[in-house]
């Protein structure tokens, strides 16, 4: 029996859920080794966060696309805020109390649920109180705005990293200056000095990590595609939580080997691949089990996610670590969506559709995400021009009151029929 106090501690729930998933994986004869490694990494991430306060470690809560590598190089314990909310929804299904606590703070239902849930989680003590709050304008306006509130809720200082929209030399210099200021802020707050050698080492590993992402994506071009439909969330989490960490390299190398073996033996992620899909944005976490089941049932597999897994070109230079951290932030796939939408975003959609032999696309239109919903029409029109139909699924990444499994099934079945009928 879980008592009320234990139930409130979401990190504890996450650690326990990872343990259960790990045991389930080990019990399955066909359990993927990389999946096991993934759960172990997550369990370790949250165990470290759970014990950080008792061990006198310095905790920095940070928003999405934040250069976590800097925190690792400074021996600061990171807490990726949005991912933690997703994980709570995905692994424990216990988000309702967080959203309700967010509403108690006066946050309107239209505000992005991960951010609303986060504010609620900190307010009721469901997440450890951070020593500092770090946030940036990368990549959405919710992220840019919610940092101030999270500082207030946590009664802690914070730093806003102003990320320029464009990729010119001047703007890159400005970003390096911003990163430098943030390091000084963190040094003052934590008393930890930046370990530049360690940062250089981490940058070298990130470069390797990005190469592995690219190689894995290459393998996913195979027909049938070897990686399961929601697998891209693992890749995303690796980049979000473990940039330049040796365990991330081990995981990616293991996954790459597993996928290569499947490709060479002609084995797909689904037993009978019928529909190769492109996915936009994040599916509802609470429906992941259902989405995997329907993927198997209909032979529909996500083979590419242009704004999550399709990394841009470029290499990182460990001898110039801070410049490389800045450079990496421009290489991440989501950057094509950042700021005014230019040709890069639309070109990458068309290029991915062709390279990955896509039959259709699914757009998870998160109702609280103005950033993603604003591009529905543009993406749909772009895909229609190359005769690729797109299904828009109105949903929310963590709030189950927006759409039900039944509703989702009905729309997906209609879409699969449309694809089959063509």
């Amino acid at each position: 029996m879980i008592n009320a106090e234990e139930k409130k501690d979401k990190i504890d729930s996450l650690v326990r859920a990872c343990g259960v998933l790990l045991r389930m994986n080990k019990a399955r004869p066909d359990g993927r080794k990389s999946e096991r490694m993934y759960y172990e990494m997550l369990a370790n991430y949250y165990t470290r966060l759970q014990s950080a306060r008792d061990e006198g470690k310095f905790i920095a809560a940070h928003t999405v696309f934040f250069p976590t590598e800097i925190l690792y190089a400074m021996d600061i314990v990171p807490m990726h805020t949005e991912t933690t909310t997703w994980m709570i929804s995905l692994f424990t299904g216990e988000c309702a109390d967080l959203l309700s606590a967010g509403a108690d703070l006066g946050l309107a239902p239209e505000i992005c649920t991960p951010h609303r849930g986060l504010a609620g989680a900190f307010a009721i003590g469901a997440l450890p109180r951070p020593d500092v709050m770090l946030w940036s304008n990368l990549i959405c306006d919710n992220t840019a705005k919610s940092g101030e509130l999270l500082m207030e809720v946590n009664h802690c200082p914070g730093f806003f990293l102003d990320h320029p929209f464009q990729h010119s030399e001047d703007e890159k210099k400005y970003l390096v200056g911003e990163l430098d200021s943030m390091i000084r802020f963190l040094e003052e707050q934590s008393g930890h000095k930046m370990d530049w050698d360690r940062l250089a080492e981490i940058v070298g590993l990130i470069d390797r990590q990005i190469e592995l992402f690219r190689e894995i994506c290459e393998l996913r071009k195979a027909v049938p595609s070897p990686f399961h439909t929601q697998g891209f969330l693992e890749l995303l989490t690796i980049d979000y939580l473990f940039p330049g960490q040796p365990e991330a390299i081990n995981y990616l190398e293991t996954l790459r080997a597993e996928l290569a073996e499947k490709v060479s033996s002609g084995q797909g992620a689904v037993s009978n691949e019928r529909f190769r899909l492109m996915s936009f944005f994040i599916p509802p976490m609470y429906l992941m089990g259902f989405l995997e089941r329907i993927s198997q049932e209909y032979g529909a597999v996500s083979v590419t996610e242009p704004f999550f897994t399709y990394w841009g070109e470029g290499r990182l230079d460990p001898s110039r670590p801070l410049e490389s951290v800045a450079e990496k932030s421009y290489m991440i796939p989501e950057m094509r969506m950042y700021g005014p939408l230019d040709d890069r975003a639309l070109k990458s959609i068309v290029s991915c559709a062709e390279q990955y032999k896509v039959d259709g696309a699914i757009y998870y239109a998160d109702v609280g995400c103005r950033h993603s919903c604003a591009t529905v029409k543009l993406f749909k029109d772009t895909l229609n021009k190359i005769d690729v139909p797109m299904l828009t699924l109105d949903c929310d990444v963590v709030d189950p009151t927006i759409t039900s499994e039944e509703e989702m099934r009905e729309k997906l079945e209609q879409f699969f029929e449309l694809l089959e009928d063509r």
Partner: protein
Amino acid sequence: MKALGIDIGSLTTKVVIMDDDGTLSLNVTPSGDEPESSARAALKGALGQIELNLDHDLYLVSTGMGSKSVSFTHQQKAITTCLARGVYYLFPSARMAIDIGAESCNVIKVNERGRINDWVNHDKCAAGTGVFLQQMAKIMQMPLEDMSRLSLNAHSVPDITSTCAVFAESEVISHVHRDPPTPKEDIVAGIYSSVVSRIMTLCKRTGIEKDVAVVGGVALNSVLVNILENELGFKVLVPDTPQIAAALGAAIIARETIEKGLGT
């Protein structure tokens, strides 16, 4: 073997029976609480018209919100797939179909082979559907048919802007009770106009493409169809029995299955 299509909707169940030469029989009956028994009753009615019964050699394709509850169907298809086939059969020139049913509204883009290119639907709220009009008729205390006739005498059309059926109801009630009250004919014109504006929003999302066919039970309402035509700026195609379009599409799929030899 006869090809049967059945569309089990929330208010009515529609059946179409076809053979190689075309439609043999059609039947529209009210849906009961149990989709299975509603389906059996509707099928018996349609088969009875051509002196057949459920023991004959039949191939059945079902669609509509109750289709998953029917145990004796051979194939289930999505309503959008069936609508596209049905509309294309009725009007080969149609590239867009607007289906206004009891509880949902679908807008479908149909290609030159009668297949769907795209669709959007309005399924979060009853505003913009047949049930909404029924509810409004109740508030206006008049039969739906009278409401349509009355709207033709409207002098002005008040805005009923709520996108939620319940809030729209409150807006209508406030028009009824204001001092002086908004004339009834104006209110009903406002109700129809609000339904059309919701349909137009869906049409614009897919992009409007001629010819446009309007099907579903609400297409029987000529006043609403006229307002829709004014908004679109051109005439639309409405079949004689618009409510059977999806059942017809299901029957066509059943017939194709039989022709391919897969129905045995």
